[in-house]
């Protein structure tokens, strides 16, 4: 029995070898193994007890080698078979070189840290294995964390690693783009009679290279690839990889390529649905090449289990949510595996409520493609649809010459002329693509249509951020920022066609010059135009603005303070600083819009509750445990002195000491104050005005003020509409970039600011000693933002930059009241420096 058992185990080990090797030598190997065991049993010299060790080591060493040899010879046979069928080879080396060149460009212009918007969030969740905003992007988090760990031994910071991840995804996408274009032009022979065949190959390579150059340097593609602001570079990669797989399937008719494409498309859904938008183009392509494939049951039978497997990546959400990571947006928990599976495979229509809500992006509300996003219930007006396409054209106009009249967001200066030129080249490129390979051109065109026209219709934006501002002055009727990043993939495909158009131009010119390709080669430099005209706007090199701003904000908050923020853009860089760089973890950040939920107040309660005696929250750095300690070593000594020293003990209670039922009750409360409502606690005596519409956000903030006032400094990001709603503006003290509620604890003198200055912008008082220390000694301002020659790329972020101006302005006013002209002059100079962005 023992002999049989050992033979069976060795037979299993033999499975490590490639099938053809097993077929040839498997029997001999098994016989030799038996002989070795028999020798060991007889006690022969050298056999001994080591037979198993010997064969296991042997398998571990030789099986990978045999697999490698088998793969090499298989690839060689396939190449030969393809040649025999007349299927051209593709230039894999050229694709790798192109991908490397693109990576190098993104590396040179890489953001050194977090940027504004979602960059801080995505870097944070990749580091702490958290859950970002719905739909939760589990694939991104798993890939990001793996990448973070993989590069842990390098000198790169976590932020750089995740930004490199974005650059790598885009570079790989361009590698596949090169292959797609190279393959499409493989069958094309130049019409010039005396041309050497090698020139035909050269034309293919140049066409693919120009397509990659024009795609990679398109403004949005570039600007989104040198920082990980979104998860769309992963979608970009899977889209181009899928395109390449189906093109290769056409050549080889190997159904495994289609199955892999289907698996990848299903998997990319766990990153973002953007990648799934490749499906219509793939279906059209496969249909046009060989529609019989759809009727092959064996392909479906092989693909379906893989699709189910790919969907299982979403299980990450409930599994990790149960561990309560530091970032756990929407808390997509689910108590049973069955419930989670139902949620996932019904796309959130059934199953667990919390998980389904995340998968359906419920917190953003329903956005019907048929209705006006500014007036739900009314049909989408034609003029809005027109404006949405104008908005798209505006972003298209940014792609190849962003620096030309850059400060004019809408068709500024000569830029539209350059755009028109490139559109004409793209049309010529599309024509050449069609002539070279109709299937490939159809695939490209369908992808482009989906990622441009299709997206415009599907996304159904409000009025663009910089469109029709005079007609619709209410900012709530507009998108909160420019949304060009949604069209990244479409702009890449546009760029590729423009690149092909440039090569067509070169070819025509060479024909006219009697086949002198070299003489016409200067025309190819057109493909470098966007590189030159976009660099200053697309580069994020040395851009520390968001990271340093986050540092400056957190240093404005006193130890164990609460900081109420206004939304994503002023919160995510703070998360990054706290959870990745581990700076000022003692500050409880309250992202006010999330207070409208039940899950977020619970997290705020738990993250600020006192730690059990002897428990160190640093032992569990990625999950919510309890109040993290203030570390005086992170704070400038002058600031510590201005504060009057560091606290000895953390506060004795949570900032929101409510139970789950009380939180649920507050989360559902919307009401209008029918009389003046007092908000009294300690020295604070505020009044909510009659008629104020109060949301759960206001109510939770009021509850935080009630429980924490006097025990913790309560700060607000400026300006904060909540302060006005709760009648707290007259109690605000400007401290650096924040307001603190005046709790009378500071022994320092507070300077009242004149009543005529706007309370919401400057505050009622200023803590001049601390603010001066912050502005002069503590704040970090370096890199790109300090370079007066570089443009400010994202207009929507200017309100954040303006806070520096307001802090200096408030300090200047206070010094002026005190008659300190030198100090006024000092602040005025800085005010002038910061105002340069808004003046334009």
């Amino acid at each position, binding site marked *: 029995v023992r002999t049989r058992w050992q033979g069976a185990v060795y037979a299993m080990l033999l499975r490590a070898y490639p099938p053809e090797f097993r077929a040839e030598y498997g029997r001999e*190997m098994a016989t030799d193994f038996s002989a070795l065991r028999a020798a060991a049993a007889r006690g022969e010299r050298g056999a001994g007890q080591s037979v198993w060790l010997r064969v296991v080591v*042997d398998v571990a060493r030789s099986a990978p080698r*045999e697999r490698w040899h088998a793969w090499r010879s298989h690839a060689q046979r396939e190449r030969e078979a393809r040649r025999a069928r007349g299927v051209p080879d593709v230039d894999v080396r050229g694709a790798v070189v192109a991908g490397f060149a693109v990576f190098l460009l993104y590396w040179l212009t890489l953001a050194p840290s977090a940027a504004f918007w979602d960059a801080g969030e995505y870097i944070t969740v990749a580091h702490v294995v958290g859950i970002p905003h719905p739909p939760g992007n589990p694939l991104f988090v798993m890939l990001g964390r793996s990448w973070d760990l993989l590069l842990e031994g390098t000198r790169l910071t976590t932020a750089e690693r995740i930004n490199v991840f974005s650059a790598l995804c885009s570079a790989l996408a361009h590698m596949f783009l090169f292959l797609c274009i190279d393959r499409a032009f493989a069958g094309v022979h130049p019409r010039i009679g005396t041309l050497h065949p090698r020139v035909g190959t050269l034309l293919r390579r140049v066409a693919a290279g120009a397509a990659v150059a024009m795609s990679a340097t398109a403004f949005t593609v570039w600007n989104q690839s040198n920082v990980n602001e979104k998860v769309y570079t992963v979608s970009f990669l899977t889209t181009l990889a899928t395109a390449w797989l189906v093109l290769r399937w056409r050549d080889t008719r190997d159904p495994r390529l289609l199955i892999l494409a289907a698996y990848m498309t299903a998997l990319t859904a766990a990153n973002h649905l953007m990648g799934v938008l490749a499906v219509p183009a793939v279906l059209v392509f496969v249909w046009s090449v060989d529609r019989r494939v759809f009727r092959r049951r064996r392909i479906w039978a092989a693909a379906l289990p893989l699709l189910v497997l790919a969907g299982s990546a979403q299980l990450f959400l409930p599994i990790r949510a149960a561990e309560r990571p530091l970032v756990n947006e929407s808390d997509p928990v689910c108590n049973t595996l069955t419930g989670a599976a139902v949620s996932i495979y019904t796309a959130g229509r059934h199953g667990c409520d919390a998980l389904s809500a995340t998968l359906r992006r419920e917190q953003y509300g329903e956005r019907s493609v048929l209705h006006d996003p500014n007036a739900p219930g009314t049909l989408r007006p034609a003029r809005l649809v027109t404006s949405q396409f104008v908005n798209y054209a505006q972003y298209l106009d940014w792609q190849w010459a962003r620096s030309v009249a850059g400060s004019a967001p809408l068709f500024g200066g000569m830029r539209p002329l350059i755009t028109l030129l490139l559109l004409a080249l793209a049309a010529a490129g599309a024509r050449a693509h069609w002539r070279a390979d109709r299937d490939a051109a159809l695939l490209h065109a369908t992808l482009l249509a989906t990622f441009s026209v299709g997206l415009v219709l599907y996304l159904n934006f409000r009025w663009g951020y910089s469109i029709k501002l005079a007609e619709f002055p209410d900012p709530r009727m507009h998108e909160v920022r420019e949304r060009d990043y949604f069209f990244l993939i479409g702009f890449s495909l546009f760029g590729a066609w423009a690149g092909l158009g440039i090569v067509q131009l070169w070819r025509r010119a060479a024909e006219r010059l009697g086949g002198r390709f070299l003489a016409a080669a200067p025309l190819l430099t057109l493909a470098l135009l966007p590189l030159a005209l976009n660099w200053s706007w697309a580069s994020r090199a040395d851009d520390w603005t968001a990271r340093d701003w986050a540092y400056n904000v957190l240093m404005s908050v006193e130890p164990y303070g609460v900081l109420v923020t206004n939304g994503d853009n002023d919160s995510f860089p703070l998360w990054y600083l706290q959870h990745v760089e581990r700076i000022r973890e003692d500050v409880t950040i309250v992202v006010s819009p999330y207070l409208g939920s039940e899950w977020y107040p619970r997290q705020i309660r738990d993250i600020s509750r006192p730690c059990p005696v002897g428990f160190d929250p640093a032992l569990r750095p990625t999950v919510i445990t309890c109040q993290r300690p203030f570390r005086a070593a992170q704070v400038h000594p002058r600031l510590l002195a201005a504060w009057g020293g560091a606290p000895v003990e953390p506060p004795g209670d949570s900032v929101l000491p409510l139970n789950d039922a009380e939180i649920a009750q507050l989360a559902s409360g919307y009401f209008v104050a029918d009389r003046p409502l007092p908000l009294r606690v300690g020295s604070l005596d505020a009044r909510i005005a009659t008629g104020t519409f109060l949301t759960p956000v206001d109510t939770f903030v009021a509850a935080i003020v009630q429980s924490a006032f006097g025990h913790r400094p309560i700060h607000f990001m400026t300006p904060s509409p909540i302060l006005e709603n709760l009648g707290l503006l007259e109690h605000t003290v400007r401290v650096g970039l924040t307001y603190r509620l005046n709790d009378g604890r500071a022994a320092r003198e507070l300077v009242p600011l004149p009543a005529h200055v706007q309370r919401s912008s400057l505050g009622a008082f200023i803590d001049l000693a601390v603010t001066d220390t912050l502005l002069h000694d503590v704040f970090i301002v370096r890199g790109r933002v300090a370079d007066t020659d570089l443009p400010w790329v994202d207009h929507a972020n200017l309100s954040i930059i303006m806070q520096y101006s307001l802090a200096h302005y408030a300090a200047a006013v206070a010094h002026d009241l005190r008659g300190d002209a030198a100090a006024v002059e000092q602040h005025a100079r800085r005010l002038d420096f910061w105002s340069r962005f808004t003046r334009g």
Partner: protein
Amino acid sequence: MSSRSERDDVAFSPQVFHILLALADGPAQGYAVMQSVEQETDGAIRLGPGTLYGAIGRLRSDGLIEETRAQAGAEQGRRYYRLTARGRSALRREAARLERLVAAARARSVLPAEGT
């Protein structure tokens, strides 16, 4: 990929050299080759089946050894391998190369002179 015949001047790995050496006396099956190599090297090289048959496969495709019919009295059901003319010639060249190396080492007193 260049074949063995194209790189006859390249030194064999010790394992391959000993496999060829084990077949120099005549045809042998895999297990016998393993035993022969182990004895020849005094246990310094102990081939496992995977390593042995991987090397045999490559030597066959390079034309240095070939499969042969079992000899009289041989173990039934086993596959036997023998050196080809090219394999014998390559083995001879390699042995000569090693001999020259040893002679050079002796000339520089790295090894003691023969017979001492």
